[in-house]
């Protein structure tokens, strides 16, 4: 297809390529004798698989400064979010039926809470401030005596905005409320020290950090009262919390990706900040352009901009061959304006014109310059076509 030519991928928040070393480790495991065995098998080959998995768990635990035993493997952050929220709320249902989250969470979180609402739990949906950040006083005011679980994401997938999970967690801990963090967008990107953070449950996924798709993990803190009911049954793997044959090649891929992320996190962050700043300085003077979120309090790999008087779908097509997102990629098949940006107070029209540019390890300064030029041209073209602009 002609489409394959010359695409410029700037959608690293949706998914990343698998690092070549990660792919190599996975390939080796899948085919080499003795390594493809079922880790549930007690024979020597099975034990080799167990060894590979244990090493990967150590790598991921090392990235997050926790212990391997605290990590449950899942099929991705969607499942981790479900396990944490449905499983956590069920496990603790006797402690109360009140739950707190935000409107700007990922669908995997909001839809899990909606399911709990159908099960007669009571959910408070908090709105962020206009910059996307949750106000701590507002958060505290929402807590009740029967609040048993809070879920607040670390880095927002649409805007890159970072929530203060340390402060929120400290408040939860004081009141013995279970605190879950969706960290799909931050694991391997921002420094996370689970030994120090007051977080009880944390969701993560490999494919946002140069690992394979379809493997995630849930961190479960080693504290009394912190536990989840399983969603799946059978087999007894992973202390019955999540059965199923452990996908060794996937896990090894996640581990390798975590290891690489750890070794270059600082460097990645610096590069991404430089790319993001260059992009923003290239477009910020466009009339009617607005940054969604808070550039001073964001993961620098994500920049989300709205622009007045521009129709979003046409903008996206005019931006080709740039591969960028409107709203969350996980939801972008729908043409609805992003509920995340609506919660930030953007009008439907502005939300609909929003484009998320997200940068990654392969992104170069030249790519950014190309994207700036393309974005300016696209806006220009659509404005010239639109009624009301002098031809």
């Amino acid at each position: 297809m002609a489409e394959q030519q010359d695409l410029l991928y700037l959608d690293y928040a949706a998914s990343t390529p698998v690092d070549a070393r990660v792919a190599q480790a996975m390939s080796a495991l899948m085919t080499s004798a003795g390594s493809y065995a079922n880790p549930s098998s007690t024979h020597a080959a099975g034990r080799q698989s167990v060894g590979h998995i244990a090493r990967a768990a150590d790598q991921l635990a090392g990235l997050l400064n926790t212990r391997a035993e605290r990590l449950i493997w899942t099929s991705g952050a969607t499942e981790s979010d479900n396990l944490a929220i449905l499983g956590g709320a069920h496990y603790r249902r006797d402690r109360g039926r009140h739950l707190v989250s935000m409107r700007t969470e990922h669908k995997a979180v909001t839809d899990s809470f909606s399911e709990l609402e159908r099960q007669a739990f009571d959910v408070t949906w908090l709105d962020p401030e206009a910059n996307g950040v949750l106000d701590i006083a507002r958060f505290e005011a929402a807590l009740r005596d029967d609040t048993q679980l809070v879920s607040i994401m670390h880095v927002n997938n649409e805007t890159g905005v970072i929530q203060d999970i340390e402060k929120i967690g400290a408040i939860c801990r004081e009141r013995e409320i279970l605190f879950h963090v969706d960290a799909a967008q931050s694991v391997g990107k921002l420094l996370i020290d689970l030994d120090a953070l007051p977080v009880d449950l944390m969701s993560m996924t490999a494919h946002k950090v140069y690992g394979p798709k379809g493997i995630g993990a849930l961190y479960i803190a080693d504290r009394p009262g912190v536990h989840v009911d399983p969603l799946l049954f059978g087999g007894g793997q992973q202390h019955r919390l999540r059965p199923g044959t452990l996908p060794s090649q996937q896990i090894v891929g996640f581990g390798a990706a975590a290891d690489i992320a750890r070794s270059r996190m600082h460097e990645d962050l610096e590069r991404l900040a430089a790319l993001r700043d260059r992009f923003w300085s290239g477009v910020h003077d466009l009339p009617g352009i607005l940054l969604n979120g808070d550039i001073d309090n964001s993961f620098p790999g994500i920049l989300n901009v709205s622009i007045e008087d521009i129709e979003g779908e046409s903008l996206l097509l005019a931006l080709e061959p740039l591969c960028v997102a409107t709203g969350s990629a996980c939801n972008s098949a729908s043409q609805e304006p992003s509920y995340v940006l609506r919660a930030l107070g953007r009008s439907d029209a502005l939300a609909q014109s929003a484009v998320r540019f997200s940068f990654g390890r392969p992104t170069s300064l030249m790519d950014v310059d190309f994207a700036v030029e393309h974005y300016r041209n696209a806006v220009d073209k659509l404005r010239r076509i639109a009624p009301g602009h002098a031809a």
Partner: protein
Amino acid sequence: MSTDPYSKRVRDLFDVPAHAGSLDGASTVEVSDQGVRVRLYAAVVDAEIRALRFQAWGCPHTIAAAEAFCAGYEGRPVVDLLDFSVSDLMQSLSVPVEKTGRILVIEDAVRSLGSEAGAISIPDD
């Protein structure tokens, strides 16, 4: 999940909307509905459409449809505008059904343009 929502024809029309723009002193209509806004300009001489231009704010299908209309009706009798129907356009552009409403806005605009440009009173001029 999605496959390419745009046909090759839509992409081509959208990429090079040769008739985007305005015509000074021409008949003009603007229709705004269904979240799209379309303005059409027709320069009519002797009941014949000499030139068509459009301005549009909307999705790629809307823009492509406006361009396709302009490209297809230059040189034709203005009376044709009154019979304009989007169904051929829908098909030739493979417009998804859920966008029918937006394309009907173009039908509205075209028909108004027909009246506006004097299609009713042809013999007179």
